């Protein structure tokens, strides 16, 4: 049937689309991996159309999951189109947090034949007593952007929901759609566990990416460090033109605000056609901007990753990346936002924010050509999601704990879940766990006459439904005009640091703090002047392992004079020559160490090119281990490229590093890391999200924040109380593990140590900082790592006062 429709439209089906339709008619499940904008929606949907023929209001047949609710409207139209054209009576509807309550109520009686929804709304649907009836005729689930979901706890939530649906429909078909993946088997196993018949479908669609760097006339206008690069802005401004709709991507919200402002200042005439898009801005404003982009009213948008995914903007002709690309998959995804037409080239313009970014661009180009993309790892057995799911399953219907255990362990995420951990989670939500059992209110579940578990009170069910989901954010403060208009959100820490009447740049507007109360920051418009920019968390994204590999390869090629001739390298030639003359350019099997003495003291540098997080962890770990050999106080800095240790007194760095190979040992890695880094501080932040997902804390009903005034405690306080009085709590351990993995990429840290063990160490003492070390010195003030005890830190702070 889909073939007819394609013919009607005058379209030619692509081989990968045909392959999918065939597999679907065979009753198979599978994973479709093709670049964005190649027509995968109709691939995953087309083969199912036959089932929608001759329907007499059967109810839900096809469930379509998407991570973005903003996308549902466009998708709804796209999915309804072939049905209309062919003249089928089946209906397509969406159900998200935005759906009106009357529509929701109607859907609760009978779902449409094709339902578009988000993972959260699906889980919510599963908590209704009528869920089994509503899903009775379900045939296929389509999961869009699976690569995106997979890497987060939202993916885990989808896995659990699918396991639930498979209990009802053992032969349920599941189709995932994803961008190109480095580990497709893994992605498939999480989507369709234990199905030998499931198929991978890939397309040989060529969507070449043409990556071009913006090269300023004066290379000296590019700074050594930092991530703004505004001084060289002219070079990019010359390449922008509202006649060619452009998306400008930055790495941080901070950067987006600054560049947006710089462009408007330079080109005030464009103001009507320029927009700013980032995750902190109010959703209505963002949606207005998105529709402006679609209609062509808005021609230039400065955005963060908030626009990486989502609606197709077919008018976009050019994509710009500002600063380090950070990862290959990410860069390709961004490049794919231009020219959403099959077979056409994606144009990507890369603007360096500091000198060495040019080398990253050249390295990224080569990695893209070789399709070296990053593997995506799904969360392993997150207990907080498990706790939430157990409660979810007790609402609407009861569950038998044995069969629930089997259902949960049928997913890839929990396949190795032990009975002990399951029981621990069940006990926590059922009775409040070991320490919380003295009040009826904490325990959420009770056994019914059959011995099955069910929620105790309707009140608790209502509360649970409101907190379903795994998206947590830092404690955010609403930004509002005095008149009441909402502008967006900023982190609480930023809001509380603002002084009265202080000006700051937000959403492209200069605002002035007026008052800060009840988690709302009231502001007024201000005119010009010096304005600070909120420094949001999350600007710490590291260089990915694939980009790091590519970068090391570039250095290797340069060292061996075998580098391809690129505009980037031609521009960087004087910089690289200086590096070679002063020190060394490391080959692939080498690790470069430099030492240098300046007015500040004795510096040592190690260049791993392993990304900021690994280097953060490595800096503290090695400082701790060097300190064991000879006591010293180090100030440490880490960047994507390397580490700096600064010591006020002479320190035998070379001696220790060359003579103590145990410095890089994997033994006691966990203990030494915990010893050298104050994981507790970071675990506090992580724990807040975990406690919320697990349902330990409840943020309150929307808009009822005020009533909870006497029940407010910072995440730090909560973590302290839990870790002191319930240290066995597995969620505390989960917080620590997540910190090690998220903050220091523990697995990659291990790999790096192994590489440090097996590589040749090149030591260079340099008369002055080199092109590689200078950025670290320039960066130092922005980063801090402490390896000392609280008392030592206080003593050191006091010592500085006395000076």
């Amino acid at each position, binding site marked *: 049937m889909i073939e007819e429709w394609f013919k009607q439209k005058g379209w030619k089906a692509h081989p990968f689309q045909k392959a999918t339709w065939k597999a679907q008619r065979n009753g198979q499940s599978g994973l479709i991996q093709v670049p964005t904008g190649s027509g995968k929606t109709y691939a995953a949907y087309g083969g199912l159309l036959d089932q929608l023929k001759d329907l007499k209001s059967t109810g839900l047949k096809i469930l379509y999951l998407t991570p973005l609710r903003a996308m549902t409207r466009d998708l709804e139209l796209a999915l309804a189109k072939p049905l209309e054209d062919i003249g089928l009576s089946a209906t397509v509807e969406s159900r998200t947090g935005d759906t009106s309550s009357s529509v929701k109520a109607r859907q609760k009686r009978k779902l449409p034949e094709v339902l578009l929804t988000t993972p959260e709304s699906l889980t919510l649907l599963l908590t209704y007593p009528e869920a089994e009836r509503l899903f009775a005729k379900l045939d296929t689930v389509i999961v869009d952007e699976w690569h995106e979901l997979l890497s987060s706890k939202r993916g885990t939530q989808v896995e659990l929901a699918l396991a639930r649906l498979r209990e009802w429909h053992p032969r349920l078909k599941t189709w995932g759609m994803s961008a190109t993946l480095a580990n497709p088997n893994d992605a498939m196993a999480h989507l369709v566990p234990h199905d030998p018949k499931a198929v991978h479908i890939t397309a040989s669609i060529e969507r070449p990416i043409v990556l071009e760097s913006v090269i300023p006339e004066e290379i000296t206008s590019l700074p050594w460090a930092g991530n703004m690069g505004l001084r060289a802005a002219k070079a990019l401004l010359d390449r922008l033109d509202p006649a060619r709709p452009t998306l400008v991507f930055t790495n941080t919200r901070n950067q987006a605000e600054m560049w947006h402002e710089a462009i408007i200042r330079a080109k005030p005439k464009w103001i009507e056609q320029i927009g700013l898009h980032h995750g902190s801005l109010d959703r209505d404003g963002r949606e207005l901007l998105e529709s402006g982009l679609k209609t062509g009213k808005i021609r230039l948008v400065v955005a963060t990753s908030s626009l990486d995914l989502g609606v197709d903007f077919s008018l976009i002709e050019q994509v710009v990346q500002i600063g380090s690309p950070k990862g290959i998959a990410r860069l390709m995804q961004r490049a794919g936002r231009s020219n959403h037409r099959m077979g056409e080239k994606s144009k990507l313009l890369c603007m360096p924010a500091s000198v060495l970014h040019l080398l990253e661009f050249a390295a990224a180009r080569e990695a893209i050509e070789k399709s070296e993309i990053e593997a995506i790892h799904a969360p392993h057995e997150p207990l907080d999601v498990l706790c939430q799911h157990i409660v979810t399953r007790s609402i609407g219907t009861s569950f038998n704990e044995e069969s629930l255990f089997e259902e949960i362990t049928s997913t890839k995420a929990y396949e190795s879940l032990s009975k002990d951990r399951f029981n621990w989670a069940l006990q926590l939500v059922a009775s409040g766990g070991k*320490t*919380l059992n003295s009040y009826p209110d904490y325990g959420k579940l009770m056994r019914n006459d059959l011995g099955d578990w069910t929620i105790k009170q309707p009140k608790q069910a209502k509360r649970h439904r409101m907190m379903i989901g795994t998206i947590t954010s830092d404690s955010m403060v609403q930004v509002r005009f005095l008149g009441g208009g909402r502008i967006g959100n900023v982190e609480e820490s930023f809001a509380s640091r603002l002084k009265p009447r202080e000006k700051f740049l937000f959403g492209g507007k200069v605002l002035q703090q007026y008052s800060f109360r009840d988690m709302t920051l009231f502001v007024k418009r201000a005119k010009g002047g010096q304005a600070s920019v909120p420094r949001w968390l999350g600007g710490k994204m590291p260089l990915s392992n694939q980009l790091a590999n590519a970068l090391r390869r570039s250095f290797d090629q340069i060292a061996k004079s075998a580098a391809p001739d690129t505009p980037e390298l031609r521009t960087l030639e004087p910089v690289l020559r200086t590096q070679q003359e002063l020190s060394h350019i490391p080959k692939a099997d080498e690790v470069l160490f430099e030492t240098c003495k300046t007015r500040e003291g004795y510096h040592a540098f190690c260049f791993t090119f392993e990304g900021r997080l690994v280097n953060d962890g490595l800096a503290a770990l090695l400082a701790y281990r060097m300190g064991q050999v000879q006591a010293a106080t180090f100030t440490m800095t880490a960047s994507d490229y390397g580490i700096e240790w600064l010591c006020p007194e002479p320190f035998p760095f070379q001696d220790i590093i060359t003579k103590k190979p145990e410095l890089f040992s994997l033994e006691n890695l966990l203990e030494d890391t915990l010893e050298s880094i104050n994981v507790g501080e970071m675990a506090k932040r992580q724990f807040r999200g975990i406690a919320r997902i697990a349902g330990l804390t409840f943020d309150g009903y929307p808009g009822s924040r005020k009533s909870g005034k006497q029940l407010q405690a910072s995440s730090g306080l909560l973590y*302290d109380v839990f870790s002191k009085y319930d240290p066995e709590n597995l969620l505390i351990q989960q917080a620590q593990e997540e910190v090690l993995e998220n903050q220091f990429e523990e697995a990659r840290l291990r790999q790096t140590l192994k590489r440090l063990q097996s590589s040749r160490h090149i030591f260079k003492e340099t008369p002055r900082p080199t092109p590689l070390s200078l950025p670290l010195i320039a960066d130092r003030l922005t980063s*801090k790592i402490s390896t000392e005890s609280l008392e030592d830190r*206080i003593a050191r702070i*006091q010592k500085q006062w006395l000076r």
Partner: protein
Amino acid sequence: MAPVATLLQQNNPNGSCLIELLGERLELLHQRAIYWPSQCALLVADLHWGKDEAFRVRGRSLPHGVLGSDLARLASCINSRPAERVYVLGDLIHNRDGMSEEVIQEVSKWRIQNPIEMQLIPGNHDRHFPDLPEKWDIEKTSASIRVGPFDLVHDPNETTENYTIGGHIHPLLSMHSRNDSITLPCFYFGKRYAILPAFSEFTGGKKIESKTDCKAFAIAPKQVIPATGC
């Protein structure tokens, strides 16, 4: 004008600091209390008994233990000094939810073991439960009482003519260097009033502003540290 508070002794083996204020010697304890030798009295503020319980009663899970640990710390202050009475500078309890039978019992038991005289200068939280359990044997005073040269109050902003000592604020002190910063609870001594740290460990707080005419003492886990930077 005489300095607000003079440091007499620091780095005592027990972690305390001895100061002189308007001719009175005061010992600042890292257990978040002041011992006043000439009055044989302990000063504490903002105990917020039952705060964690209030969280539990409202369905926010928290492990037990905060109250027990706070009570043990208060007992250690009482037992390590020849104290004859405890002045509580307000906010003894958190709210009505937190006054569960368990909390009342736990404190009653503790009072049997620690039968020292206790006086409560009521704070804003204490109005949520005006009649304290009889078994607690804690006497309520007026909103401000005169002891020696000082007025003891809850909220020191409601200043009287005399130098006041109070709580209410839960003062925190941020200590910075070029590349590090630590925030700790503190004792604060200003020109007209002094503020005690919140005694309860389950409390947040407010960072105090640095001024030149005041002194602050930060509370590290095992010692009180004069913070000259304030």
